[in-house]
């Protein structure tokens, strides 16, 4: 009973205002769902999330689609007003999509990905924290930079480990340097220990791969649907296409 009301509760909570409080409720609903599915991730460490599992992929895909359609609904309402203003000023053409569209999608995809991590990894917390900071400041146009984990840069002096041999001395800086570069790529991993960076990287890579897979599937589905549907407004023709579209899609 709780599992059947879980998705409904999550959807109802998602339909509410787009706040981070809502995300917490979703996370709890997810936990209830996945615990009933027998999730083995009882620990709270990095690397406990199985990004490669099919349920995880499906869950991310569903959440991504929900988030994208929510943003389309809210943006279409506001874009109608924007288009009126643009037509009046004749500055922006209504046919061209807004330049921040791709950044928006990227931001949504990253947010949903970070939420799926359930706070177990540093990079996911950094993504959500930087987005919270961005929205609080009201600078939505800076979302492109947000996922890179901007934040207070800690000027940590390079560690001086006890050097044991001449060969080690040469190898150390190279490896450490590369780990530092890696730490800059993974959100929220600047100035942390090497082992943490490597841990976070493993988790981050697996999550990114899942993100790419889900978005690829979504893109193919949308572009395939567009090709199949005729560009007409008559519902009868579209209804006929649905039958063939869904039939071939579900096969």
């Amino acid at each position, binding site marked *: 009973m709780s599992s059947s009301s879980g998705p409904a509760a999550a959807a109802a909570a998602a339909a509410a205002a787009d706040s981070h409080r809502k995300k917490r409720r979703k996370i709890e609903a997810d936990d209830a769902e996945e615990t009933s599915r027998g999730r083995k991730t009882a620990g709270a460490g990095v690397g406990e999330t199985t990004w490669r599992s099919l349920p995880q992929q499906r869950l991310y895909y569903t959440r991504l689609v929900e988030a994208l359609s929510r943003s389309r609904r809210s943006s279409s309402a506001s874009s109608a007003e924007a288009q009126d203003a643009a037509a009046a000023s004749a500055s922006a053409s209504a046919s061209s999509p807004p330049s921040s569209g791709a950044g928006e999608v990227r931001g949504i995809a990253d947010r949903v990905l970070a939420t799926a991590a359930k706070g177990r990894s540093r990079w996911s917390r950094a993504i959500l924290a930087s987005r919270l900071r961005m929205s609080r400041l009201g600078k939505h146009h800076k979302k492109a930079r947000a996922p890179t984990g901007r934040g207070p840069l800690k000027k940590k002096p390079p560690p001086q480990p006890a050097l044991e041999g001449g060969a080690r001395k040469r190898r150390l800086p190279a490896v450490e340097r590369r780990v530092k570069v*890696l730490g800059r790529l993974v959100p929220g991993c600047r100035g942390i220990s090497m*082992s943490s960076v490597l*841990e976070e990287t493993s988790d981050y890579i697996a999550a*990114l791969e899942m993100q790419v897979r889900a*978005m690829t599937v979504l893109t193919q589905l949308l572009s395939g649907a567009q090709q199949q549907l005729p560009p007409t407004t008559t519902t009868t023709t579209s209804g006929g296409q649905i039958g063939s579209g869904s039939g071939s899609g579900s096969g």
Partner: protein
Amino acid sequence: MSTRRASRSSQPSSVAGMSDEQISDLLSKLRQLIPQLRTNHTDKVSASKLLQETCNYIRSLHREVDDLSDQLSQLLASTDRDSDQAAIIRSLLL
């Protein structure tokens, strides 16, 4: 969240508070994730090269996500013009 770190032993180490074994442990785990380096288990890939490949891989993944976001935003934007299409596509997805 740092329970796993508590189990790390405090051996005298040469690299930033970690023993070589732990480093190679993490690096081998990382190596399995990088598609290019997964296949040749016989070759000993140096840590530096592995980390470099990791950075490149993450950058390429970022680029892929950006490209896909671009495509998705265009696809989603183009369906808005026809409200019937948008409704149909949404019903196909959800």
